[in-house]
């Protein structure tokens, strides 16, 4: 077995705002993908009761709970797993890891992603068992022997980098959940009939992960790059209702720069070249906060594998709307070459310029 030599960090940082914790988790995830962060275990708590969901898991029953119990619904960037509730009594966790580091430890039939997520969840199962609770797991939740849920997890991935966000119901007020979730819940304190100190469980989790992965965690704080990105993600995404209710957020580059996509002909026409030159001039004195990507029609997504590809590129391609300027995922200019000052302003303050995709579609129709 060849062990992965990458280091592991136990994140020494705390915020009680669940939105900030989601922003930090995503920032570490993105920075890890950009080779700027180590594998990380982050244990966190929330001051307010929240339900963490992603579109596939959103349930209509939530609205009643949200209204009556003042629980906030927060959207995560997960793509698999299940929604879950957390309040001050939960221990929440975010794990960011390169899946190559888990491969040597995975036994039995290998199932891409599922095996890795099962392995990570198993780390928490072992920790729960240390408290004397008989715990079993499927690949997204932990249950007591009689089938009551005591932990849940959601997943996301960017190429080989995995993000797991989950929760353990430690001293949680589970009663209010039972009528809303179609699942049986309990908490560790209810099972053991005593309050459980979260720092004690945290220590057990850390210890079990160290044993499982044959590592020693380095207790470190958040890096400058992560902090900067987390603040950006908080300001532009997690603190805004638009993200939580409609799933809409600016599509920033991997490391948080404003992302300017130029969609042009292949090879660029004189109009496209004029646009490229103007964009270059508009961003030349804009500092390091902007990333410009040239996307030539028909050359496909292999050309820019690292950056998030705005879904809108496919729609522009289909409707043959070019040249076009896409800023943070929204079409700001198309078909004509905008002035340098308009470009500058739109790049600096994208929110001041509307997304004109709908209008363009109407025009084409």
């Amino acid at each position, binding site marked *: 077995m060849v062990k992965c030599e990458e280091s592991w960090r136990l994140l020494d940082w705390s915020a009680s705002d669940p939105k900030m914790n989601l922003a930090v988790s995503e920032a570490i995830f993105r920075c890890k993908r950009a080779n700027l962060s180590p594998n990380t275990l982050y244990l966190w708590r929330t001051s307010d009761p929240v339900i963490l969901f992603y579109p596939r898991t959103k349930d209509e029953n939530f609205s009643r709970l949200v209204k009556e119990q003042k629980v906030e619904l927060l959207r995560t960037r997960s793509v698999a797993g299940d929604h879950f509730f957390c309040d001050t009594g939960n221990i929440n966790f975010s794990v960011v890891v390169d899946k190559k580091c888990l491969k040597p430890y995975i036994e039995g039939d290998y199932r891409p992603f599922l095996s890795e997520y099962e392995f990570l969840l198993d780390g928490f199962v072992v920790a729960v068992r240390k408290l004397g609770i008989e715990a079993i797991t499927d690949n997204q939740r932990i249950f007591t022997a009689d089938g009551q849920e005591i932990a849940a997890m959601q997943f996301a991935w960017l190429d080989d980098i995995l993000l797991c966000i989950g929760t353990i119901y430690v001293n949680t007020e589970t009663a209010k959940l039972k009528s809303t979730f179609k699942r049986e819940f309990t908490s560790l304190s209810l099972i053991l009939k005593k309050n459980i100190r979260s720092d004690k469980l945290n220590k057990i989790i850390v210890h079990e992960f160290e044993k499982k992965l044959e590592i020693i965690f380095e207790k470190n704080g958040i890096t400058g790059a992560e902090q900067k990105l987390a603040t950006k993600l908080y300001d532009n995404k997690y603190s805004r209702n638009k993200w939580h209710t409609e799933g809409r957020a600016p599509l920033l580059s991997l490391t948080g720069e404003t992302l300017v996509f130029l969609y042009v002909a*292949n*090879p660029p*026409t004189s109009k496209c070249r004029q646009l490229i*030159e103007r964009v270059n001039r508009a961003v030349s004195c804009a500092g390091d906060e902007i990333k410009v990507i040239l996307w030539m029609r028909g050359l*496909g997504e292999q050309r820019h594998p690292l950056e998030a590809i705005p879904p809108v590129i496919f729609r522009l391609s*289909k409707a043959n709307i070019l040249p076009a300027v896409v800023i943070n995922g929204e079409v700001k200019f198309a078909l004509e070459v905008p002035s340098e000052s308009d470009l500058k302003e739109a790049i600096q303050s994208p929110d001041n310029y509307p997304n004109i995709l709908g209008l363009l579609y109407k025009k*084409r129709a």
Partner: protein
Amino acid sequence: MDTIEIEDQYFCIVCSQHLTVSSEEAKCSFCGKKEKADYVCPAGHYVCEACRLAPAANLIKKTCEVSNETDPMGVALLLMKHPAIPVNGSINHLVTAFSLLTALRNSGKVNVGKPELKRIEQRMKNASQGICGSWGVCGCAIAGGVVWSIITGATYLSDKERSMGLRLASTILDAIAQVGGPRCCKMAAFLAIQVSVEYFEQELSISIPISTTPKPCIFNKLNSDCLKDRCPFYGEV
């Protein structure tokens, strides 16, 4: 701060050779327009500015209106190489229909003008994306049927012509179904053209021989669902 270098090396979309900067006049390989060229390839291919920016349907119409090609596969392959035509999608149905009708017109045995091309476009609008899966009918088979109806004047009241149009479409569908697998609009278009050419020869004695082979298919790397060895057009490029 990132800025974009305008690349000095592009590839010809028709033959994949390196393009060189030019200031000479050149003829567009698609619409035939002559203009001062910016980039041409050693084989003389040039794509005019309007065609580089054109919506797919406009490009197909413009190209077919001026084409002298009598090989329908040649017309289809030229159009398919243009970046406006995606690997999959309903525009491939239109490519199939226009390629067949253009070759028939250029053979001199069928009287086809702009009104017929316009009619094709209108009729093919109903053959939307994904209907192979949701209706059990591929748009490329519909293209064969539409071309048949236009050149024979068949309507829903016609007798023999109507039946023969149905037979052509069903023969194409059978050929596509026999290959199996998830959809590949290129494979469906190639098969529809092959089957239609044989059918026109057999039933109408109109010959539009295929001289360009689509094998090995140059689109296989662009199609994540490529059927590879199951496809009659697959081969190492």
